[in-house]
């Protein structure tokens, strides 16, 4: 097998399945067999983001690929693409890399700017899965996978495993499936876990970063189960107020540029770029942490209402 060029791309192969699955979800919801909501302009925005993401990938993918090949040529070990153990190893290592990529993409604004569009829909359906970034190449998050190339995993193998992960994550973007069997929920990322990830309820913010395996969240303390008493509300903390696709793709970058133009010190530049999303010099804006704290204070008040009485 050619170690540089994958003989197939899992995502391309899965596209007909994506299309059929979306039609099926819509049809089942139309006849009230499952829960799903589709708003026409929202659906159009999500699918256009998916399409544009592929085009953007063609433009910025070259550099990422060249860097991966260069690192792999200077690899530490020779890992054969034909060995079963190598596929088992890359399954776990790629998924671990994905977890940290995804966590970084939420917790630091520069990378959030590239990832926010995946979360900017107030809907959670299979079309939301295809709402992919246009600016991931610019944010250079592909560099996080370079250590795997350095270990010796061939670029083709990395490409295939990344594709498998993306295809896996398609089907979990649905409200049609409530819970998977208990053992499955314990090990794998599921519709339930990922609904929490897409929710803007304060108690659900910044959790469930998993790709395929939910165990990483449990291991690193970011796991939050979906609670029956707290229905997820989807979207971002400050939702977009129109469906303009350029706004979907670039609004956080524009926000960063605006903030940098008004920055008054190197500390502010660093904060606006690499602070948590919502960071501001005087703390006047909301971050996930402040929203969670506000929510917890509210809960405490509600739970002990008679202190003053």
């Amino acid at each position, binding site marked *: 097998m050619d170690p540089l060029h994958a003989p197939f791309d899992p995502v391309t192969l899965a596209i007909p399945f994506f299309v059929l699955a979306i039609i099926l979800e819509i049809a089942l919801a139309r006849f009230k067999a499952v829960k799903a909501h589709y708003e026409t302009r929202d659906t159009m925005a999500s699918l256009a983001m998916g399409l544009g993401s592929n085009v953007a990938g063609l433009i910025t993918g070259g550099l990422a690929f060249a860097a991966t090949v260069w690192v792999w040529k200077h690899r530490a070990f020779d890992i054969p693409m034909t060995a079963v153990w190598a596929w088992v190893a890359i399954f776990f290592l790629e998924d671990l890399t994905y977890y940290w990529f995804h966590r970084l993409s939420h917790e630091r604004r520069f990378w959030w700017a590239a990832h926010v569009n995946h979360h900017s829909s107030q809907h959670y359906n299979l079309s939301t899965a295809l709402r992919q970034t246009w600016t991931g190449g610019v944010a250079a998050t592909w560099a996080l996978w370079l250590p795997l190339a350095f270990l010796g995993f061939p670029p083709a193998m990395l490409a295939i495993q990344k594709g498998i992960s993306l295809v896996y994550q398609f089907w979990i973007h649905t409200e049609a499936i409530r819970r998977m069997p208990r053992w499955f929920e314990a090990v794998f990322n599921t519709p339930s876990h990922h609904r929490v990830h897409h929710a803007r309820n304060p108690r659900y913010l910044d959790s469930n970063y998993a790709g395929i395996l939910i165990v990483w969240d449990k291991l690193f303390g970011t796991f939050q189960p979906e609670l029956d008493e707290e229905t997820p509300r989807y979207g971002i903390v400050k*939702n977009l*107020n129109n469906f303009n696709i350029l706004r979907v793709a670039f*609004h956080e970058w524009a926000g960063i540029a605006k903030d940098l133009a008004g920055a008054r010190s190197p500390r502010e530049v660093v904060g606006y770029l690499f602070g948590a999303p919502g960071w501001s010099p005087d703390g006047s804006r909301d971050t996930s942490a402040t929203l969670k704290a506000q929510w917890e204070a509210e809960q405490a008040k509600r739970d002990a209402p008679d202190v003053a009485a």
Partner: protein
Amino acid sequence: MLIQLAGSFAAVAVLVAVAAWAKIAKPMSPLSDARARALLADEFPGKTLDGLWIATDGRGALARSGASALVLCEVGDGYAARHIPWAQALSASFRDGVLRLDLADVAAPRARLAFDAWPPAGAR
């Protein structure tokens, strides 16, 4: 390559058409006072409202909370909310029954709310 792109465009068009045909957006009805309060409580936990004005078409609302104006506006089958200084909301342009608010945010630049009069009685 181009064939693939054309095929993708066609697939997107078909899916959007199917979504439009199904009419399965979240059901929307004009905002009631209670619904607006519930939405604002989700958006701004812990903020008490000193006044609340629902747009005449029920597609948005504006509330006063201390020195802030809390703005809620319909977007598709959902809502977006922002807060701006109350003084700015008071002095915003009001013409032909529409209040135009500058939200100063790239992600939600402007809001348009229908009111009979602005500022409303008792809002100063």
